[in-house]
């Protein structure tokens, strides 16, 4: 089956490896992956700051670029939530575009949902071994609702020992531009998250949203904590051979990834 990948701006710019890991997971399951070139961002920064006009422009461009695809895969719950739930809302007073947006959103999947519900994968080439903990992004809990699906996928490989957070429903304090508008509040929230992560005893924290990952990694590294941070696609695809998010590049010492 042919699928289109919407990489999301943060994966594109900060963590290409998570993009390639997504491609690898999809190809392993027999998909042919296209990456339409005219993609930038899903428009959340504008939308969440009240700038509906610009959010609409960006949404139109995404919809146009991806309209021919049956399956559009996004390795991020918050971008998937934007495309699935909020694109139609953006066009509530424009019948033509409302229809386009709802048609489009019916074809959008966050990576976990697609792997779990459509590809129904039951084994993953996990090479990662050890104790991980999982941070559920708020959009993965309340928009794409993939909490259990994520657990099922991670359980496909018994080498992974998942240690659950004590307070898995709590936000990490990223919130897009929230974290730079209110850096002190964001810091307090991510501190709570890090205390929770540390209490599990895990050596690695994994999540499905780059925003949360940058936020958590950023604070962990500032505090000189040795805990590693990876995107779930990297863990599932067995592509954790490169430096973890926010860590120095020590690839020369470790096995190169596929």
């Amino acid at each position, binding site marked *: 089956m042919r699928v289109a990948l919407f*990489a999301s*701006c943060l*994966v*594109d*710019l*900060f*963590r*290409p490896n998570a993009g*390639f890991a997504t*491609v690898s997971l999809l190809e392993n399951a027999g998909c042919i992956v296209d*990456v339409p*070139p005219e*993609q*930038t961002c899903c*428009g959340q*920064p*504008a939308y*969440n*700051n*009240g*700038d*509906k006009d*610009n959010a609409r*422009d960006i949404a139109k*461009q995404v919809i146009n670029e991806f309209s021919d695809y049956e399956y559009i895969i996004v390795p991020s719950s918050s971008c998937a939530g934007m495309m699935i739930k909020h694109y139609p809302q953006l066009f509530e007073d424009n019948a033509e575009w409302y229809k386009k947006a709802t048609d489009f959103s019916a074809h959008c999947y966050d990576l976990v949902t697609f792997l779990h519900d459509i590809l129904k994968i039951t084994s993953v080439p996990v090479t990662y071994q050890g104790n991980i903990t999982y941070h559920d992004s*708020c*959009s993965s809990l*309340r*928009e794409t609702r993939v909490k259990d699906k994520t657990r099922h996928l991670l359980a496909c490989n018994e080498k992974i020992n998942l240690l659950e957070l004590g307070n898995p*429903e*709590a*936000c990490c*304090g*990223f*919130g*897009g531009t*929230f*974290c*730079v508008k*209110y*850096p*002190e*509040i964001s*810091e*307090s*929230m*991510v501190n*709570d998250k890090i205390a929770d992560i540390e209490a599990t005893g895990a050596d690695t924290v994994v999540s499905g949203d780059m925003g949360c*990952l*940058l936020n958590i*990694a*950023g*604070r962990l*590294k*500032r505090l000189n904590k040795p805990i590693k941070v990876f995107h779930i696609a990297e863990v599932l695809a067995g592509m954790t051979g490169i430096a973890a*998010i*926010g*860590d*120095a*590049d020590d690839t020369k010492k470790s096995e190169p990834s596929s």
Partner: protein
Amino acid sequence: MKSKSHAFKQQAADALVNVSLQKALLNAKDGFIVKRKKAMDELPEFERLRTKAIEIKEHTLSHLDQYLEYFEQQVIKSGGTVHWASTTTQAQQIIVELCKQANARTVTKGKSMVGEEAAINDALEAAGFEAIETDLGEYIIQLANEPPSHIIAPAIHKSKQEIADLFKDHHKKYNFNSKLETIPEIVNEAREVLREKFINADVGITGANFLVAETGSTLIVTNEGNGDLTATLPKTHIVISSIEKVVPTLEDTSVLLRLLARSATGQEITSYTTFFNGPKRNSDIDGPENFHVVLLDNGRSNMLQNENHEMLKCIHCGACLNHCPVYSAIGGHAYGWVYPGPMGSVLTPIMQGLDEAKDLPFASTFCGRCEEVCPLSIPLPKLLRQHRNHIHHDKLNTSRSRLGLALWAFVASRPALYRPLSNSFIRALGWLGKKSGRFSWLPFASAWTQSKDLPAPAAQSFMSAWTQQQAKKKSSENE
């Protein structure tokens, strides 16, 4: 109380470094969440009740004028009077006038958030009455001269020690001098002081959780029983409430009550649920001689017609505050007015003006937990987003953030421009951060780097690496 919401940013920053506040917040934090969860786990019909409650509220709000009139008729039938206040000033005037008619000196008050909204205490004091809060939490913050920091637990920000110190200062005049160390000691002393006030009060003012149209009753739930004494001992009982609190029938009320107690404190039912039905009848052993209900509008009938109407379903349970990570980090006072947390960030801009409270709608990560726990499923993030839309539309946000947004959007909506720009940006950043894997300082990202490192990007973006890889593949296929 005068709004200080315009100073939210500073107040939030101050709250985060306020050691005793942080300690109190930490103590309170999980208690509410754990108790609510337990109560919900024991209520398999929660979703059914929630659906029913939403139906009741939506039905009532769409016939609000009729139910209010019905309520008024029933109050009159039972011997009471209903007063309509469209503004908080009118509510103040009505209540001051009623206290004058009662020749009052001392006025006791049960907890009422609408009373806070209308700043009734200020008005009473300005008119020369002694107004005493009788709910322990409200009493404490009245002594401290502070607004409530939570809609159901107004003094939740205060530590035991702070309360003991307050009592020491303020109870000297009643000859209480013992050192208070335990909570029961604190409660007992408050009781003794308040007992005197209850007996001497000429007017008692309570709020209302619901107004029952079919019976003309007003209803309060408390855990202290103070509301009953406030309402029944004085000669005049005044209920202050707002128009959206009316519910058609007793049966409807019971649905809402079941959700309210569990959502608020995790109790199956609050300790005291009291109905007030007009003045004392001949057969009653106690009760007031005069019964008045003051119904405040304060913009609510406008809300009914506009995009904010869903907020009128709120039953003031406080669950959205308890589950809000921002509220848990900074407490209620930072929000600057009567209502804090998510529901406050929706209501304050409506009642105090968007410009005054423009920072509140942005004090949310849109994590969505408030909507998830709200017993009426009020879409709080959506309502906050609507405020953000207006703030942007009316150009109330800073020119710096508008410019940043405009520049970013200009580039992001033009892939042909975005690609080369982002590529060179990433290449430079990736190269600079290659060695350590992160930045501890960056000139354009100080708001981030003040507390977090910024993970360095790879030197090549995904899109550019992908294009290169595909080109390579193609050329090797062609060879």
